[in-house]
């Protein structure tokens, strides 16, 4: 846990899986922490990060900003940022803001690993 956000990280099949454990992501400080964490992974040479939002019920748009910041970092490093386990409302938020065109979004971890491992 750091700066009000709980992140659990594991590495599987060359993919860094980041579980976001908070139910509500609202605080801009949490968003900044998540963005910094993701950018740090790409800076350290990680080539594929899968963010699991399965525990998140609600998030504010400031997190979409964090994902775009991290996405820019990933693109510059020729790395990949992907998401899985989105609630229907968060998935709709991704679609309405065009994030589904920027990032691979998977139904669950199994689907993500089967497709990310092949790419």
């Amino acid at each position, binding site marked *: 846990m750091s700066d009000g956000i709980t992140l659990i990280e594991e590495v599987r099949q060359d993919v860094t899986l980041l579980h976001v454990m908070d139910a*509500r992501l*609202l*605080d*801009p400080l949490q968003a900044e922490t998540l963005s910094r964490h993701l950018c740090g992974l790409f800076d350290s040479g990680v080539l594929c990060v899968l963010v699991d939002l399965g525990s998140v*019920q*609600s*998030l*504010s*748009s*400031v997190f*979409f*900003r964090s994902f*775009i*910041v991290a*996405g*820019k970092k990933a*693109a510059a490093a020729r790395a990949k940022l992907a998401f899985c386990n989105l*609630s*229907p*409302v*968060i998935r*709709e*938020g991704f679609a*309405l*803001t*065009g994030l589904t*065109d*920027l990032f691979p979004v998977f139904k669950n971890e199994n689907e993500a690993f089967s497709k990310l491992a092949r790419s």
Partner: protein
Amino acid sequence: MNELSLEKKASRDNLKELFAFVEEALIRLDAPEENRGKMMMALDEIVANVVNYAYPEGQPGTVCLRLCRKDSTITAEVVDQGKAFDPTKHPEPDITLPIEQRPIGGLGIHLTRKMMNSMKYDRSEGKNRLVITTSWEKPYE
């Protein structure tokens, strides 16, 4: 009870309480989960905008939230006495740009506009008054 309201100082210290009120009100108004999620996302954005931008730094005024339900529609009203800001006139972001050219901000109001069934703004007597609604289909009875 079909209407709940809360007025607080529009400060960052009160954000958690304001968000908790919204969540609790939507549960008490028995909004379906999907509409609850959309309304929470919209109000998180609107309330955070009031707290962060409506008043001069260090001189917060108030923000008043009112939520009510009529049939299968939840209406939320947000009132503040800060500087005039009409989110219905806010320019649409270009969400088709590639990641390298994509601006980092500007998505919150766009998201609110798209997720709500309606969004109306009025400025009178020095107050911003924003009214948003979310509706659902009634189950067949």
